């Protein structure tokens, strides 16, 4: 019965879309709760795009409808997406910070005739779940693989990996191991620690005892990262010359004021640094800072949202405002543009974003603040995770 109703409503939407001159985009993300900062960044990126490119495409006015999903909750995510499609009649779904939430929505896309533009969720497999998914963020594999080369180039042969015991952590562990072993290095031990760990001293002692020359770490940003980096310094690992490697989630800009001195010199690889030096990024940072209010809160989800909006605008242009999900997705396959993070394109096959990955080092600016300074570029990186999954 439910299917029939959805199908019927979808038919009505399809019938009416041609006459509507307001195109609605439904954005689902964490706008309250512990991850509110990430949701705020989504909104800042979207607002910045609309401020810079206008709120109309052709004759159609764009309206963004936000739905709050404070913590990972696949059932609620699906319910919100259905509500957006059925009640609000959105033509596009976007946002999604967590992988399980994005996964839960993929089954309804075809029936609803709605493309899904993922602005953050970073597990490789999402794009395989439906041909109507396009991703403008990154994957953990994509950002964690280049750091393995960096570690090897720095003359480190033995590394111990320490990750939080959850999906992205395990992705990072596998990505680093694959990349590092390909370079000829050895991962001497792989430790998975519970997400709720507060005290990292015992872990640091174990890293020391392992005899590794470097440590690869992945933890969710926020309190755990701060505790980990502090413990790394306090337990004398830095002085002992054990090098620290991680994807850029660990040194995201909104955490840097708190990490401060402790993070100085840490090298990470990531797809975007707020400090990226280009005219596109300068314009973006200015607009997004205005949108978010406090520039110190700006970090990577904003650029995923900004480019997500770019993709949606291109989809609307290509379909002339008609609701045709497949045509919209086909139109952006192979699309390339210059994003605030550098040159990017949508891979026609995986529908995931191909982009530069940068090696950055946490550096102190002249005004005493800390930032990620880009020191090396790995050009046109695809998603190695998808190939590894096959």
């Amino acid at each position, binding site marked *: 019965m439910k299917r029939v109703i959805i199908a019927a409503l979808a038919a009505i939407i399809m019938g009416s879309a041609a006459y509507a001159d307001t195109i609605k985009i439904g954005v689902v993300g964490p706008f309250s709760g*512990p991850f509110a900062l990430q949701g705020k960044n989504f909104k800042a990126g979207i607002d910045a795009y609309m401020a810079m490119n206008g709120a109309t495409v052709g004759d159609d006015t764009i309206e963004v409808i936000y739905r709050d999903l404070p913590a990972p909750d696949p059932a609620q995510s699906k319910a919100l997406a259905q509500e957006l499609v059925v009640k609000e009649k959105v033509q596009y779904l976007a946002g999604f910070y967590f992988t399980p939430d994005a996964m839960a929505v993929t089954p309804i896309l075809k029936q609803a005739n709605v493309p899904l533009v993922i602005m953050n969720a970073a597990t490789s497999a999402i794009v395989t779940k439906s041909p109507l998914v396009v991703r403008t963020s990154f994957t953990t594999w994509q950002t964690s693989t280049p750091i393995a080369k960096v570690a090897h180039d720095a003359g480190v042969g033995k590394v111990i990996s320490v990750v939080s015991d959850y999906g992205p952590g395990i992705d990072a562990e596998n990505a680093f191991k694959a990349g590092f072993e390909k370079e000829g290095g050895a991962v001497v031990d792989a430790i998975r620690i519970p997400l709720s760990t*507060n005290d990292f*001293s015992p872990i640091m*002692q174990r890293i020391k005892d392992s005899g590794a020359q470097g440590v690869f770490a992945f933890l969710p940003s*926020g*309190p755990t990262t*701060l*505790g980990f980096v502090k413990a790394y310094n306090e337990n004398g690992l830095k002085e002992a010359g054990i090098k620290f490697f991680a994807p850029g989630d660990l040194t995201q800009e*909104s955490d840097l004021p708190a990490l401060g001195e402790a993070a100085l010199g840490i090298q990470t690889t990531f797809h975007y640094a707020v400090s990226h030096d280009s005219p596109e990024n300068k314009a973006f940072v200015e607009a997004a800072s205005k949108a978010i209010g406090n520039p110190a809160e700006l970090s990577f989800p904003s650029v995923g949202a900004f480019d997500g909006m770019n993709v949606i605008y291109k989809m609307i242009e290509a379909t002339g405002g008609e609701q045709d999900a497949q045509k919209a997705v086909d139109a952006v396959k192979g699309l390339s543009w210059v994003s605030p993070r550098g040159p990017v394109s949508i891979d026609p096959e995986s529908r995931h974003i191909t982009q530069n990955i940068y090696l950055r080092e946490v550096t102190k600016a002249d005004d005493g603040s800390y930032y990620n300074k880009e020191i090396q570029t790995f050009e046109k990186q695809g998603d190695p995770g998808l190939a590894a999954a096959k």
Partner: protein
Amino acid sequence: MQTFFSIAVDAFAYGMVLFVISIGLSVTMGLMRVVNLAHGAFAMIGGYIASYAAHDLGLGYAAAVLLAVFGTVIISVPIERLLYRRIYGAPELTQVLMTIGITFCIIGIANYVFGPTLKTIPLPATLQGSADLGFRSIAVHRLFAIVCGLAVAGALWYAIEKTAFGVKLRASVDNASMAAALGVRTEIIYAVSFAVAVGLAAFGGVLGAELLPVEPYYALRYMVTFLVVVSVGGAGSIPGALLACLVLGGIDTTGRYLMPEFGEFFFYLAVIAIICVFPRGLAGRAR
């Protein structure tokens, strides 16, 4: 052997940090019989005040700690008079609902005023860096936390067991109407104990900030750990809480060092075992 000492040092330091934060909750739950789920929120307020005082007012660490403790107590006074006073002696469910509501309000206000980012409390130069213990190094602020924990434990034990105030407090807790009939001003006793408990929460929040960073969800994030410490130690017992912190800190640290992939399995297994054998906690008194 070296591994054993390493684990012991880490366990002791972690246990003492837990103790300083949780002991205020033990006082409210054991002596005042209030299930105060807003305890973490008061610890968080302390952390925010210290962070604000150190960063924005440029005060030193000692001044920031004092300001945090007294500032939090002052904030708690109207909350105690208007809200907590109504739930003394009320059923536990009422207390839980009231205090969890207060917690959510405080989280919302903290998020609005200070924003969702992490806040740090800069340490003075003497507490930064690490000390060499011969076989390994340990952060100086952890040694400081150990000393503070022991001092707090001693002072509280003395105040409750040896002073006239402690006698009146225990009398009011055991039988409020009889104590009142004998001339004890129970309202004042309660207000003072509440202020002390809140002050301890704030102190713990500041002292533990290196391990448990201050952010709006602090108030809920660590509440389970605090409650576990109190229930394992026995509500209201200072030696019990101390013992619980050391035992749990030890088990948690050992598990994390030797078998991190088991997560908190051993921690909660120990909690279940202890509660099965001592339903009122290690040093809990029968009511």
